[in-house]
C-alpha cells in the first residue's frame, strides 16, 4: 500500500494521479468537495483506486463495494471516457486518459428512487 499523502516527483511514472468523482452523498460522508485526487501505482485499475480511496477515507469502506467480497454495490456504476466500466474486471487497466489525469473516474449512483 502506498502512502497517498507522501510527496512524489511529477516525473515518477510508476505512480498515477487519478481524478475521482464521487456521488454527492459519498462526498458528504467523506467530507470532501468536488473531485478527489488519489495516487496509485501504475497501471491504475478500479481496484487500486478503490483501495487507495478507502485507505484515505475509511468511512467509504462498504459504501462502494462490499466489505468482504469487494463486489461493487448494485446501484453504483463506474464510468470513464464515456464508457461503462462497471462490468469489467476490477483489475482491468484503466484507459490512458484516466491514468494520465486527463479524464476522471466517475462513480455514479443509479438515477432511481424517491
Amino acid at each position, binding site marked *: 500500500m502506498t502512502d497517498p499523502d507522501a510527496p512524489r516527483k511529477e516525473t515518477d511514472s510508476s505512480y498515477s494521479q487519478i481524478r475521482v468523482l464521487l456521488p454527492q*452523498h459519498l462526498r458528504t460522508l467523506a467530507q470532501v468537495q468536488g473531485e478527489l485526487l488519489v495516487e496509485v501505482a501504475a497501471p491504475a485499475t478500479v481496484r487500486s483506486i478503490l483501495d487507495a480511496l478507502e485507505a484515505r477515507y475509511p468511512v467509504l469502506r462498504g459504501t462502494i463495494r462490499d466489505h468482504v467480497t469487494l463486489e461493487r454495490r448494485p446501484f453504483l456504476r463506474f464510468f470513464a471516457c464515456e464508457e461503462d466500466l462497471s462490468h469489467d474486471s476490477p483489475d482491468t487497466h484503466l484507459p490512458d486518459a484516466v491514468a494520465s489525469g486527463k479524464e476522471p473516474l466517475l462513480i455514479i449512483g443509479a438515477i432511481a428512487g424517491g
Partner: protein
Amino acid sequence: MSQVRVLAGTRKGAFILTSDGKRNNWEVSGPHFAGWEIYHVKGSPADPNRLYASQSSGWFGQVIQTSNDGGQTWAPAGNQFTYKGVPGTHQWYDGTPHPWEFKRVWHLEPSHTDPETVYAGVEDAALFRSTDGGKTWEELEGLRQHSTGPHWQPGAGGMCLHTVLLDPSNPERIYIAISAAGAFRTDDGGLTWKPINKGLVSNFIPEPTAEVGHCVHHVVLHPARPQVLFMQKHWDVMRSDDAGESWHEVSGNLPTDFGFAIDVHAHEPETLYVVPIKSDSEHFPPEGKLRVYRSRTGGNEWEPLTKGLPQSDCYVNVLRDAMAVDRMDRCGIYFGTTGGQVYASPDAGDSWAPIVRDLPAVLSVEVQTLP
C-alpha cells in the same frame, strides 16, 4: 429544570427535537445525514450524550454514526456487519431457500451500563454487538443459527430483527423479535436462544400456533417489571407475565388489533399505549381518525385518546419503533407518523399537539429525559 430530547429517524434524515420540562416549545435540529434513511437513533442510558444512529441507503449501504455531545456533532463508526461462519439460508416469500444477506440496521440498543456497548438488530435477521462504541461489530450467532433459522421467512418489510430489549435486572437476559419469525429470549448473554411464542395465534400461517413464523411487530417491557412483556403482533395485542414463556391476548375492546407501535407508561407498568391500524392491507387508522388507545389495566380495557389528534381524513401509519415515552413526573408520550408529524402528549396521553408537522416519513422515535 429537566429537558426532553426526542430523536426522530426519518426516510430522509434524522431530527433532534428539544424542549424544557414543560414540553410546550420545541427546537428542531436537522436534518442530520440529509437524504439518507435513518432507521433508528438512540441514546445511551449510561451517558445520554452518547447517541447512536443507523444511517442507510439502497445505493451506499449501511453507515453507523455516533455522537458524544447529544447530537450536535457526529462521527462515522464501523459499518462492517459480517455474519459468522457460512450464513446458510432462510426461507424466501415463496418458501424456497434464500441466502442470508445483510441489508441494514433496524434498531440500535445501547447497554444500560456501558456507553461503549450497543446491540444492533439487522435485516436479514441477526443480532450484532459492539463493545467499542460502534467501531467493530460481532454477531451473536447463536440466534441466527437456532435450529429453526432455516425456516424463518421475511415479513412484508423484510426479514428484520427490529426489537431488542435488555433486561435491566439481569444482564444475561435479552429479548428480541423478528418479522416474521417471532420473539426469542436468551438467558446466557446471547449464546443460546429459545423461541418464546407459545400462546401466539397467527391464522395467516399454515400452522397458526407454530413455534416460529409469527409476525411480531413490536415488544415492550417496563424496566421495573421486566418479566412482563407486551406485544403488538401483526394482529392481536398480547401480554406475557412470565418472560415470554406464555402469552395471552389483551386486545379487548380495541377497534382493530392490528398495529405496529406499543409502549408502556414510564411510571405505571400497567398503563399501555397502542395505535390501532385498520388492517394488514390498509395501513392507516380506522375511519380516518388518528387515535391512541390507552389501557390502565394492562390490556383488555382500552380508551381512545383523541384530543389534539386529527379525527377526520387522516390516513397515516405509525411504525413499530415510532412511539416512546419520557420519564418526567407527568409521563410524556410521543409518536411519529408516516406523514411526517411527531405528536407529543405532556399529560400521559390526555391531550396531544404536533411538535413538527412536515418531516419526511418518520421511521423511529426515541426520547431522552435529561437533568
